[in-house]
């Protein structure tokens, strides 16, 4: 177990070193090595899936002494929720590498950045203490800075700086909160510690909880992003290269939601119960705002980016509902959104590689020249809308049911998000694919090649599998979410 998790974090780092040391002339080796390095973590997640124990408690796998003088350890562990996220990450990274072999400029650096990013993300999902959680959470910014900054679009400087400043500004609150928690532990237990186990044993007054909850949640809200802090997202997505967008939407946005589930809710439950109404409201605003803004977009990437804001709103609503079914839906939807939006960005990237534009008005009727691509796009759009039988439906349905009992009006309003999603996604589909071929220059567009088919196929397969048999995922997360929901319920009972 220890070896499996360590290899998940260290293998990408190791292979990025191998890449760095390769001479420039051996270009043909870059992609195979990166692909190999990023598939080793897949073994990690598979190993966890098969041999992991999921009984609803957080499993500490090992501790390494880190800052001995202050008695700080690096604690590594897992549970069902983090496993779902690790699985998502390990699947998306190799696929995003595969899908972006069109990047020819400074390939080596690009692959190194992606691998380091993967290591850091797995680091976050396996961290069982606040300090290393923060450490990896922040370390993700470095590769992301370079991915958007070097391989991004025209306006990348603005987007990158905005992304970094927003996230760092959020993170300092988390940093402050981490330090505060450590000192509270010092006060109560006589030693400095940050591991989740000790932190969960802290006795906190309501005011302390409120402060810590707000500090942590603000950092996560920027990352998710929750409605008023979302403005960095469309810019970053539009400017990022395909792989960057896939990972940003697929994995990085989940970090925020994961942080709320892992830290804000269980450790500061009283404060969560106090503030969850606001969270739900912001979530619903995000759902509707994101969807409404997505409708008139001409840039496909911008449309998908705003749809992300909308979908992440669902996840926030699900968490804020505090009910078992809502939270389960939220976790499931985190996985779903990663798969679906990752696939959408991948498809948009394929189109961009061919035509070097993302303006929908430049296309029209290209179904006739790219039938397979059109079919794939349709399936992914349906999954994004939440059509029954595909993964998006299960998650959103559970969230809506779960939140109805707690926040009826919110739930009803959120349901309109599904309708709006149908409007913007199908409209986009109509503009790009249906009807007569609008421009003759588009006749030369070729359909998906083998590499692209291989990169999109697993994601579509996952969408269908989860859509038909969601228990496949539920099985791993249900006990953990149940325990979380119990904690919330107990607190709710105590308050009323």
């Amino acid at each position, binding site marked *: 177990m220890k070896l499996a998790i360590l290899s998940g974090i260290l293998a990408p780092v190791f292979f990025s070193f191998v890449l760095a040391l390769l001479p420039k002339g051996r270009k043909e080796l870059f992609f195979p090595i990166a692909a190999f390095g990023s598939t080793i973590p897949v073994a990690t997640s598979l190993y966890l899936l098969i041999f992991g124990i999921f009984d609803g408690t957080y499993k500490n796998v090992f501790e390494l002494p880190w*800052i001995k003088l202050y008695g700080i350890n690096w604690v590594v562990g897992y549970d069902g929720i983090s496993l779902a996220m690790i699985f998502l990450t390990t699947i998306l990274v190799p696929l995003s590498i595969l899908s972006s072999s069109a990047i020819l400029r400074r390939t080596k650096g690009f692959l190194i950045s992606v691998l380091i990013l993967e290591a850091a993300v797995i680091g976050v999902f396996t961290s069982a203490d606040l300090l290393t959680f*923060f450490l990896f959470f922040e*370390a993700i910014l470095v590769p992301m800075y370079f991915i958007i900054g070097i391989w991004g679009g025209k306006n990348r400087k603005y987007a990158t700086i905005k992304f*970094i*400043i927003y996230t760092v500004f959020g993170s300092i609150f988390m940093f*402050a909160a981490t330090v505060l928690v450590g000192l509270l532990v010092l006060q109560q237990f006589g030693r400095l510690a940050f591991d989740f186990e000790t932190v969960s044993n802290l006795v906190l007054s309501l005011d302390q909880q409120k402060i810590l909850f707000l500090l942590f949640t603000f950092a996560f809200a920027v990352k998710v992003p929750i409605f008023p802090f979302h403005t960095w997202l469309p810019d970053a997505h539009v400017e990022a290269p395909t792989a960057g967008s896939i990972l940003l939407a697929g994995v990085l946005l989940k970090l925020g939601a994961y942080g709320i589930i892992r830290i804000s809710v269980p450790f500061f439950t009283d404060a969560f119960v106090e503030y969850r109404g606001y969270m739900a409201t912001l979530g619903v605003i995000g759902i509707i705002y994101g969807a409404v803004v997505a409708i008139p977009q001409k840039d496909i990437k911008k449309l998908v980016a705003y749809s992300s804001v909308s979908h992440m709103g669902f996840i926030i609503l699900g968490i804020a509902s505090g009910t078992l079914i809502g939270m389960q839906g939220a976790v499931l939807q985190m996985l779903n959104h990663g798969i679906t939006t990752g696939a959408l960005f991948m498809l948009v990237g394929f189109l961009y590689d061919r035509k070097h534009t993302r303006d929908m008005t430049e296309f029209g009727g290209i179904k006739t020249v790219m039938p397979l691509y059109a079919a794939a796009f349709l399936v992914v759009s349906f999954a994004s809308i939440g059509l029954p039988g595909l993964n998006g439906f299960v998650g959103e349905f559970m969230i809506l049911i779960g939140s109805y009992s707690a926040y009826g009006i919110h739930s009803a309003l959120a349901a309109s998000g599904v309708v709006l999603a149908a409007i913007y996604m199908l409209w986009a589909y109509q503009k790009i694919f249906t009807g007569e071929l609008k421009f003759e220059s588009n006749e030369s567009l070729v359909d998906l090649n083998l590499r692209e088919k291989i990169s999109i196929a697993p994601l579509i397969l996952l969408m269908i599998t989860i859509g038909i048999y969601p228990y496949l995922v539920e099985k791993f997360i249900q006990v953990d979410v149940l325990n979380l929901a119990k904690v919330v319920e107990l607190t709710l009972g105590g308050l009323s």
Partner: protein
Amino acid sequence: MISEALGINYVVIAPSLCLLIIGIIFIISDLSLKLKPLYQGLVLTFGLLITGVTIIFKIVEYGRLGVSSHFSSMILLDEFALFSDVLLYIVAICTFPIIWTSSSVLGEKRTEAIVLVLMSLSGFMLMTSSDHYMMLFIGLEIGSISLYALAGLNRKDSFSNEAALKYFIFGSFASAILVYGIALMYTSLSATGFYETSRTIAYIGEQNVPLTAIIGLALFTFGMLFKVSAAPFHAWAPDVYQGAPTAYVGYMSAVVKGASFVILARLSIIVFPLLSLNRSIIFAIISISSVVIGSFFAATQTDLKRLIAYSGIAQAGLIFSGIASGGHAVTASLFYLGTYIFQLVGLFIVISITSDGFSSTIELDMLKGRLKKNPFLGVCFSIFLLGLAGMPLTSGFIAKFLLFTNLWAAGLYVWVIVFLLASVLGFYFYLKPIWTLSIDEAESDVILLVSRTNSIILSVLALLTILLGIAPSSLLNIADWVVSSYL
């Protein structure tokens, strides 16, 4: 016998003496023997090696004698002295290759530059090992005057001249203030050394300490704060950094900061607690204003060296905040100082290689895309800047984390909040040069050559920055060893 009575022990000043002797040999060898540069280089390498050996002897001597005073209470052998000796020695070792190669444009005057560097190092090592204030002043002046001259070595450049003159005038003014502080402490306490001061204060009791003594101590501290360019004593820093030859700036700033902060740390541990001066409002103003002024001005700079100068003001404020807070925060400050100096030195080596090592002004726009063709330098440059910004997984983050934790634990909430907000700004201005140098399109093709020595040094410094971010215990234990026996 008499030597024992006077406490003559050459081992404790051996590093300073050794550097002095090498300097003199160097002058003589140049003037009378006219050695070729190759042989000069060999003499220098050999001399620096011997200096290293003497530092090891000094550490052994400390193991034998413990904290002790020598030369009739003139020279102090303690943990702080050893810490700064090692730190300054590392700075010198790391920067000498770049100083050596860049100074070749000076032709025959290269000797001058090398001798000045050796003298300044000798002076600052003497300063940190001194027990007596006058000894400290002598060490400081030997060091500082050499640095004033170093700043102006590029005689044809008006910026360099301006830097030297400005540094000299401001520096002498600060030295005068420092001496005045020493004089006030002597007249009011009859104390002339760190331990003597603390003994006297403990003897007469805190409430009986005359105001003049406190003013004297404050003036002394201000003199030191001037050297580390903390606000409001920072006005010289940007101009000097900008004007002085690039290859020397890394050395100059690192050595001065290293030595002066160690003195301040010793003061903070030995003297300040007796007068309850830690966490006083004036220290709060100094460290907070340094961080704020440094960060805000750094964000507006277009000149790379000025940017780093202003950011250095902010960093000085941070390091001083821990020292001012006293107690365990001093450990964090010393750790911060060590990591900061490694990053600073590495950064300036990269800048010297990237631009002409002897030019004064380095506009960021002139360096567009300069590091694109050289990934090794680009990666090192990014690592050092990210370290300075405090990015996790670099030593800068651990340093900030430990410092802020200690400050918060000491109840200095406002300080921490201001520092945190300023560090967001830090990300902006530290990432800007990375963008310009390694992401922007290059306007001209400049091929950068990195000598083997420099690439080894840069790799070591970059690795240290990463390793201390992942496994900080080694340096932290050293910092703790320096401070803990006094707490």
